[in-house]
Structures are given as C-alpha cells and as structure tokens.
C-alpha cells in the first residue's frame, strides 16, 4: 500500500503534477477536513467547557465534563447496553450470514433468487423495519404476529418491548438487526467462497476428507479467515453506532425508557435534547470515539489484520 501511490514519472515537471494532484484531490480533502476534522477538534475544545445551549462557551471546566460523564450511571449503563447488544448480534449475524452463504453457494438452481431474497432487507431502512417489528410483529396485544402465533399454542400475550424481566425487548432488537444486515454479510462471504481455489477441495478429496463438516473445518473455514476478520470488525463497529432501531422501537411521545439505551441514543438526548448540554455531549463523543478506536485496534491486532497474506 505504501509505495503504490507512485508510478514511474513519465510526464511533466513536478510542479505541474502537484497542481493537478490538488485539483483532483483538493475539493474532497477540503470538504473532509471541514466536515470531519474541524468537528472533531471543535468537539475536543467544547468538551473542556461548560456549554449549555451555546457553541462559543466561556466557562472552562477542564476535565469536569469527562468526570461527570464517566460517573454518570446512565452513560456507563449505555456502554453496558452496547456490550450486551454486540454480544448477541455479532455472533448471531456471523453464524447466520455464513450459513446462508454456504447454503446459497452450493445451490445448482435458483441461486440468484435466494441471494436476492436474503439481500432484499438491505433495501429497508431501520425506521421502516422498526415500524414493522414494533407495530406488527412484536406489539404487545393479540393482533401482533408473535402473540397470535404464541396464542395458537395457548401462550399468554407478551408486551415484548416493555418486558424487562425476562428482557424480551432484546429479542425484538436483535431479530430486527439480524434480518436487516445478514444478507449484506452473506454477500461478503459469498465473495470469499468464490475465491477459494478448487484445487484445495480436490486435494482434500484425494486425501479422503469427507465432504461436509471435515472439508468445512479444514479447508473452507480457514480459507475464509480474511473475510471473517473483516466481517467481525464491521459488525462490531456497526453495533457501536446503533441508533436508528433503538430510537424508533423504544421512544414514544412520552419519552425514552431508561433501559436499552446505547451510547449514541444517550448522547443524542444529552446534547440535543432539552438543556442542549453540548459540552457534556462532546465529552461523551470523545470518550466513545476513543473506545471505538481502542476496540478496533485491539481487534485488528488480535485477529492479525494486515498479516493475512501468510
């Protein structure tokens, strides 16, 4: 990656090329700087100030926002919410999308039909999916699909989204995201499966490996390593950014319940809800960004991202 930006220079004086480089890259770099780097630095600045309802604060409070954020039970519990959420959603999506890819990949007919069906939910927004889940499948009354089906077996009605013991609301949240994203990761796995050299399977067959579990364990799964690493990394990052479905499933005209509130939802209400505590919200954003960076780096190291070639 490091040397690939350079090609043999065949043309023009250096200054000429530099000018053209910036004509091509300049607009994008300037926009990225203005709308990513400036907000980041501004956020860092704001996080050291008492900034209610204002973006040009005067009252410097040092690490005050950070200590109040980290000692705020609601914020730390939002981090736990994320941890629990990713503990459910990452393995579930990984297993389902890999299983779908393996099954679809071996189909001799209607392969593109099944691929489309599983990929189709990606066309749905989290808002629309939340509506279907909240108002049609998992609503707490008899006319919901889940309660109707359970009713056939004589089970009682369950108020899915407001039952915290046992935490049935997790079932709603996890199945929704599973439905929306499994097809996308299935496509990534399908691409990975296409790249496995058929010679490996031939060799395995010659060695007497039984098709099925043995071949999967010793050939397919190890060959999918690079894809698996990328999928898990993306799943964790995406889980960290969960907002849409939590907001749409759980908040209503009366507000948001104190449970199942991941970090972004909490920051949204802190910084932009009543009170508009932008300083505190910024401190939370900085903490969250640091956590995401650490998790990503640790994960990349752990899985050995970058030395996948060996």
């Amino acid at each position, binding site marked *: 990656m490091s040397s690939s930006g350079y090609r043999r220079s065949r043309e023009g004086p250096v200054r000429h090329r530099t000018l053209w480089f910036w004509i091509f890259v300049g607009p994008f770099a300037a926009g990225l700087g203005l709308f990513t780097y400036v907000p980041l630095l501004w956020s860092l600045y704001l996080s050291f100030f008492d900034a209610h309802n204002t*973006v040009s604060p005067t009252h410097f409070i040092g690490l005050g926002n950070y200590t109040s954020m980290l000692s705020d039970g609601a914020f730390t519990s939002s981090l736990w919410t994320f941890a629990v959420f990713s503990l459910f959603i990452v393995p579930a999506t990984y297993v389902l999308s890999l299983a779908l890819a393996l099954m679809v990949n071996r189909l001799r007919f209607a392969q593109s039909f099944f691929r489309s069906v599983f990929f189709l939910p990606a066309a*749905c927004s989290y808002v629309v999916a939340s509506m279907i889940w909240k108002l049609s499948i998992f609503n707490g009354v008899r006319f919901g699909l889940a309660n109707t089906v359970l009713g056939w077996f004589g089970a009682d009605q369950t108020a899915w989204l407001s039952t915290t013991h046992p935490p049935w609301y997790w079932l709603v949240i996890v199945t929704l995201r599973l439905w929306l994203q499994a097809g996308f990761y299935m496509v990534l796995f399908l691409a990975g499966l296409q790249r496995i050299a058929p010679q490996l399977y031939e060799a395995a067959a010659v060695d007497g490996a039984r*098709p099925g579990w043995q071949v999967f364990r010793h050939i397919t799964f190890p060959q999918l390593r690079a894809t698996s690493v990328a999928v898990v990394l993306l799943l964790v990052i995406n889980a960290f950014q969960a907002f849409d479905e939590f907001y749409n499933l759980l908040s209503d005209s009366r507000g948001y319940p104190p449970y199942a509130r991941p970090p972004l939802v909490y920051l949204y209400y802190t910084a932009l809800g009543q009170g508009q505590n932008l300083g505190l*919200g910024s401190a939370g954003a900085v903490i969250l960004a640091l956590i995401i960076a650490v998790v990503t780096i640790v994960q990349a190291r752990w899985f050995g991202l970058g030395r996948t070639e060996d």
Partner: protein
Amino acid sequence: MPRSTDMPRRASTPRRDDALVRAGRALRTVLLIALAALFLIPFYLLLRNGLSTEQDITSPAWTFFPAHLQWSNVRELFDDPAVPMARSLLNSALIAVATTLGTVLLASLAGYGLARIPYRHANKVFYAILGTLMVPAAVTFVPSFVLVSTLGWISTLRGLIIPTLFSAFACFIFRQYFLGFPQELEDAAKVDGLGYWRTYWRIVVPNSAPLFAAVGTIVFIGAWNAFLWPLVIGQDKNAWTVQVALSTFTTGQVVNIHELFIAAAVSIVPLLLVFLLLQRHIVAGVERSGIDD
C-alpha cells in the same frame, strides 16, 4: 474461477451413500425455503397492513390475509394534510440524488489523483483520509451539528446534503480500483496528447462504468435510508426526509395505523426498484469493495 476442474474431483470422490446425499440436499433446500419465507414475511406484513382497514389490522382475531384490500389508503395518505408525505418524499429524493452524484464525483476524482498522479506527499494525504474511517461518522454528529448550526444550515437542504458528500470509504474504493486500472489505456491517451483532466473524463470514466454504478447505488441506498443526520438537522417540518417523517409518526400518536404502514410501503418503493434493476451491480460493488483483501 474456472469450473472445469470440478470433473476429476467428482470422479475421484469416494462413493457415498446416495440416499444420504439426497436426503441432505433435500433438507438443505427445505431449510432455505423456510428461511426465505421468514425473510419475506416482514415485507408481506408491510403491504398487508398498508392495504387493510384499521379494523383488519387491530382485530383481536388476527388473520394472515386481510378481509379485503383497501387501495384507497394510498390516496388517503397523500390527501392527509397532517402528513407531509409528498414533501418528505421530494426531500428524500433530492437529497439522495444530490448526495449520490456529489459523492461519486468528489470521491472518484480524489481516488484517481491519489492512485495515478505522482506527488511527494500523496501517501500522507491518503493516510489522513483513511484515518477518518476510524472515526465513525455517527460519533461526530454532536460537533457536526454545532458546525452546521454555526453556518446557519439547520433545516436546509444544504445542511442535509453538503456535510455528507465527503465519504472516505468511497474515496478508498475508487483509489483501490484505479490502482488496478490498465495503464496501457492511459498511456495511449498520453500519446494522443491528453492531460490528466481529459484522460480522466474521456478514458477512465467511460471504462469504469460498473464501479461508478456500484458505488452510486450503495451511496444512494445509504442516503435514502439515513436517519440520524436528517433527524438532527431537519428540525423544521419542511425539511423532513421520509425516514424522519415516518419516525415522527411512530413516536408521536397522530396517524392511523394503516396510513403509517402504507407510508412506509411507499417509502421503500424507490429502493426496491433500484435493487431489482441494479442488483448485479450492488452485489459486485459489495464484493469488490476490497474490505477483505
């Protein structure tokens, strides 16, 4: 991958119990069909509720098929003055189209410059761009909101579109792709006396149509389905996107439930069309996004 090599493999595979193989295959097919049905049910429910009467949806004796279909729900939705459906659809369309064109243009130019124009600090610039991928866009929404409100762009199309145009991910994909673009084509253009600018527009862009289509569709889907940013910036009812409008209905207590469902069904029609028409490109684009290389 050449598939011809399959033949000797099959021949040399030890014979297994044919009945067992067939049973396994049948089991897999049944499982796939069951899963496909499960994946389609939410779409069916959306349509079912959208075309039902209020009574059919909320009846305690719920049935899979509604008693009768009520197509007039669609007209009712667009006639309801309390629901800014037409306006929010228009906003979403404008935003999605502008975001797609802008992102593809800016990111492809930058990707080409990074890949093909020799410049001493090109790699530093590239890493500065790549570094923003580590910062999830959603985490910067608080300071971005602050910036946009300072610019006076709250509840404007500018505020909804411009900050979203600079996708480091799209730039990365284009750069990776242009690194592998056949050099011979460009060399021929050089011989003909074309500079970077005209080489890009006359040779590179026309020969990269599939990638532009793939990135474009992915950006379009993301822009159409975006929620957090439009929610934060589109505070005024006139600036609502269709996702924000839908969300406002569910979290408030205004609309009839059948109207809500038909609104949601209408909101996914553009994307379903894009999906069905361009599916091949989307899949190819996802596959070649290079995230697992």
